[in-house]
Every structure is written in C-alpha cells, then in structure tokens.
C-alpha cells in the first residue's frame, strides 16, 4: 500500500520535476556556463572582472528598486487594510480593481504610461487647458519610479491583504481591553502580526524592481542593470551572464538578510 502510494506521489510530482529541470535548472546552468567562459568557450573570469565597471549601475538599480518598494509599501498597506476590513462583497470589487492591471501585458501598460506622461500627453494636455505650462515628466527618474510602483503594486497589496484578512479580530479586542488606543493597537498588534505579509510583499516587489528592464528604458530613457543585461545578451553574452549571476547573488543576499529580521520575530516564511 505504502509502496503504491509513494509511486503515485512520484507520478504526481513528475510533471513538476520535468518542468523545473527544463525551465529552471537547465537555463541556470547555461547562465553559469556563459558567465564562466569567454567568447571561445574557454574558462574565464573576465566577465566577473568586468563587473566592476557596472558597480554604479548596480547601485543605481538597487536604489530605484528600494525606492519603488518603500513607496509601494506605504501605499499598499493602508489599501490592503481598508480592503481587509470592508464587507465581503466590497472586498471582491476592490481586489478586482487592484488586480485588473495585472491582466494586461507589462509592455502595453508601460506604453500607455508613455503616452500619458509625454510632453504632449494627456496630463500636459489637461494642464494646458487649465492654463499651466507643460510639465516635463517623461524621461525623469520620477517616471521610472512611477512605472515600477505601478507595475508591482498588486504584489505588495495581495500578501499584506491576505495576512490582515486572517488576523484574529479578538486579538485586536484583547489589545483594546488591555488599554491600547487605536495607535497602539496598530503598532503593538496589527503591524507585528502583519509582518509576514509585509516581508513577502517587499520581496515580491523588490526583486522584480531591481532586475526590471524596459520600464526604465521607456519611461526614464535610461538603462538600469536589467536593461543593460538585456542589451549585453545580444552583444556579449558572457558578460551579460556574469552580470546576471552577480545580480542574482545580490538579491539572494538581501532577501536572506531581511528574512533574518523576521525569523527572530517568530519564524516567518516568505
């Protein structure tokens, strides 16, 4: 009986194993292979040595990613809180509004923002009608942050909303009962208990923000590390692969540092 069920289990996980091998392990292997070889396929660390030229770009990308993540968090938390406290039917509508943009392709959404932010775009058109001069928005750092926040915002809202929804209402009553006013109910009970959602939200926004490409290019007219890697893959795949690997390590390190903080607060898994 046990043997049969274990065979069944294997059968059930088999498709995933194949999928993981084909789309995670094999590509990773190729990235590593190209990172450690040169144009002729010989072992070489030249790609990693050249990485030092990209340090400012790494810093800039991480800075943009951090900024976008913080803004996402500050916007998403109150919204997630409001949704989680709304009536069930209202909750569905609000969640839908948060998620609808995710149904559209990222490239299309970014193009839409381009037309909105352009010097001759909708916003400037309206400003002109109201008698204000054109405000230059496209190709500014602000536009890049806007693009990042806009695109990854749902990934911050959803995990926080999920945690807040599961929060036991009697814990809030208990805190009130023990003398906490609204502020302290929030800081001493709700916030610490929603930390797991915040952490996974931060991870889900920070990682794609740092490694994003296209958004900065189209809205900011600049290349972040993701854009640069995308360009390099076409011209110098070995350097591109080395940069990818370094970026991945940087992201893994920052995630594990963050998890360290929450682990102490009660073993939270992202």
């Amino acid at each position: 009986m046990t043997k049969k069920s274990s065979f069944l289990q294997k059968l059930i996980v088999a498709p995933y194993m194949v999928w993981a091998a084909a789309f995670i392990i094999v590509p990773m292997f190729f990235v590593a292979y190209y990172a450690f070889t040169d144009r002729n396929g010989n072992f070489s660390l030249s790609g990693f040595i050249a990485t030092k030229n990209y340090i400012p770009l790494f810093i800039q990308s991480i800075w943009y990613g951090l900024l976008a993540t913080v803004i996402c968090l500050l916007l998403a938390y109150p919204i997630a809180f409001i949704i989680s406290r709304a009536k069930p039917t209202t909750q569905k509508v609000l969640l839908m509004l948060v998620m609808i943009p995710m149904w559209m392709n990222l490239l299309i959404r970014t193009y839409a923002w381009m037309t909105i932010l352009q010097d001759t775009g909708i916003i400037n058109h309206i400003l002109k009608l109201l008698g204000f001069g054109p405000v230059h928005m496209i190709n500014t750092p602000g536009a890049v942050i806007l693009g990042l926040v806009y695109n990854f915002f749902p990934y911050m809202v959803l995990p926080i909303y999920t945690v807040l929804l599961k929060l036991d209402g009697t814990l809030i009553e208990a805190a009130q009962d023990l003398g906490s006013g609204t502020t302290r109910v929030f800081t001493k009970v709700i916030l610490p208990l929603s930390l797991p959602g915040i952490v996974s939200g931060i991870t889900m926004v920070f990682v794609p923000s740092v490694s994003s490409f296209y958004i900065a290019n189209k809205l900011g007219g600049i290349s972040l590390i993701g854009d640069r890697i995308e360009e390099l893959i076409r011209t110098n795949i070995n350097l591109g692969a080395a940069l990818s690997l370094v970026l991945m390590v940087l992201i893994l390190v920052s995630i594990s540092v963050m998890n360290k903080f929450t682990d102490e607060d009660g073993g939270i898994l992202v």
Partner: protein
Amino acid sequence: MQNKLVSLQNIRVKFDDDEILKGINLDIYDKEFVTLLGPSGCGKTTTLRIIGGFVTPDSGKVIYGGAEINDVPPHKRPFNTVFQKYALFPHLNVYENIAFGLRIKKLPEKQIKAKVTEMLELVSLKGFAKRNVNSLSGGQQQRVAIARALAIDPKVLLLDEPLGALDLKLRKDMQIELKKIQQQAGITFLYVTHDQEEALSMSDKVVVMDNGIIQQIGTPQDIYNEPKNAFVADFIGESNILDAVMKEDYIASLSGYDFKCLDGGYAKNELVDAVIRPEDVDVVPAEKGMLAGVVTSVVFKGVYFEIIIDINGFKWMIQTTDYQPIGAMIGISIEPDAIHIMKKSVYSGVYGDYSSFSDEVDNPEVETSNEVNTNL
C-alpha cells in the same frame, strides 16, 4: 455584599432585526463572583461584551462609579476580559503577553517584572516566562490569559466561557483554581457559562438568562431550590416538572394525590408548576407510596441509580441508592420541603417528562432542545 460596582439599567440590544437583549437590569457588587448562565444565544456573552465596551446598547445605561459609561471605549474601562479562545498574542512570549497591559501603562521595567512574576505565581506558571504561547497546552494558555487580564488590576474581570475548550478533568481543576484566584486577588468576577454545574460550584450569585431576558437572579442554592419558573428548574440540574393545583395553602394536588408542601399565597385551585428534584424522592414499597408506578429504566451512575418510573403516564426521574429492577412496581414518598411550587409561565409544559430522556446531562443545550414538546 458592600457597594454596587457596575449596574446595567434596562439594556436593550438589537443585531439587525434580532432582539438579543430585552431589557437587562443587573447590579454587580464589589468582590462578587457573578455568573451569567444560559443556553447558547441567550444573550449572556452580549451582556458581558456590553460591560467590556465591545457592544454599545441601543438603549439603557451602563453605570460604573455612579456615572454612565455607555460611550467609554474598551481601553478606558477598568474591566479586563478573558476571551473564550484566550486571544493570546502569538508574536509575544508568556512574559510579554502578561506585561502587555503594563507596558501600555508605561510602568518602569522593574515594576513590570515584579508584577509579571507575581501573576505567574498566582496562576502557577512559574518558570514559563520565556515560553512561546503557542507551545502551551489549553489549560496553560488559559492561565496566561487570566494572568494577562489580572496584571493591570481590573475592577472587574470578565470571563467569557473561559473553560469551554478544556477537557472535563482540567475544567474541574480550573474551577477550583479560578475561585481561589478570585478570592486571593479580591476582585469582582463576571463569568459567562452554559454549564450549570460550573455556575453552581463557583458563584456567589447566579444570573440565569434565556432569550434575552434574565429569568432569575440568586445564590446557587436559591436558584436550585427555589427556581422561579420551569426554565430555571429545567436548566439547573434534573427536575420533574408537573402540572399541579393548589387546593389550598400548603396543599398541592399533583398526579391525583394531595401533597403537603411549604408554599402558600396562591389562589384556591390555582394551576401551578411543581418541581421535584430526582434526589428528593424516596422509594418505598408500592402499597405504602403516596404514588406508585412501574420502573421503565435503570441506569447505574456510580453513587446512585437513576430510575425512570411511569406514574399515571408521566415519567419521573428518581435518584436512589437502592437498585430497582425494570418492571417493578414501586411507590414514592415526597417530603413537604421537597416540593417547590412555581407560578405558571411561558415555559410551563415546555420541558415535558423523562420519556425521551437520553442521558445528555452534560450538555444542557442538546438536552433542552431534545425535550421540547415531548409532553404535548
């Protein structure tokens, strides 16, 4: 009992169109152990939550210290609650849970430590300070919840079925412990339960509720011996509730026999309910009995036998130490002080006899619903 601590005056509460409380009047005195007793949905928890400040009454007044506190939020009331599922903070350890209210008050660390240590000792959890609350057993979590609520010296401790989730043995131990804690801490306890045994063994004052109305307020003895109506008689312990006629003062006729009793002041031939507790009925030979009937069921209960006996079509429950075989014809004899006469009420005739009795003594809710309409 000395001074009045909390008063509820004509409290009414509606949730949607459901009237949960229909005019509750209750005074709670200092250092009293008061129990709100009743089946699920009787409004006892709502009453507790009104005092805690979690529910605002639609009308009526909550009075504390001579002033109305209807609009005072929970965190400004000197009452603390032990919640039904404890509601311990999962992100804090035992020490920090108990210290929670003290930290809100911004007491110095030294004072907090002293108080938490004192509380841990009071609830016999010395050495558990650093433990994660999720690693504790139900009984231990219960104690932490009590310690946490008591730590900030409430004027009234509100307990919402705090022992409901514990097993029977632990529940009995905790009953004794709670009573001890109440006496040691010297504060008022307002305790909500549907377990009549719990209510009788712990309380100074029992408030029996049903359907959003207080049915009776009294000491455990009052409630048991002098129930005001059929609901109270049925809910508190086992009871044979029969239709009776007051022939004159101190003479009640039931099942065709004129019993002597101690109740008077009723109109001549007034229809009343008579309550006779199963343990107050003496078994005698059939020919010597005031009434006689056939044994239809015998259950051994350890200390006594629980016998169901059919007398003129009404099934009585009798608790006796003498075994009687099924089918035996036996007589019963009842002392005057064992008969309690009650005015007819809306509950008269609702509870029937013991013909459908199925030994669900420990669960009053099930028992009540099973017995409804059996005597129609």
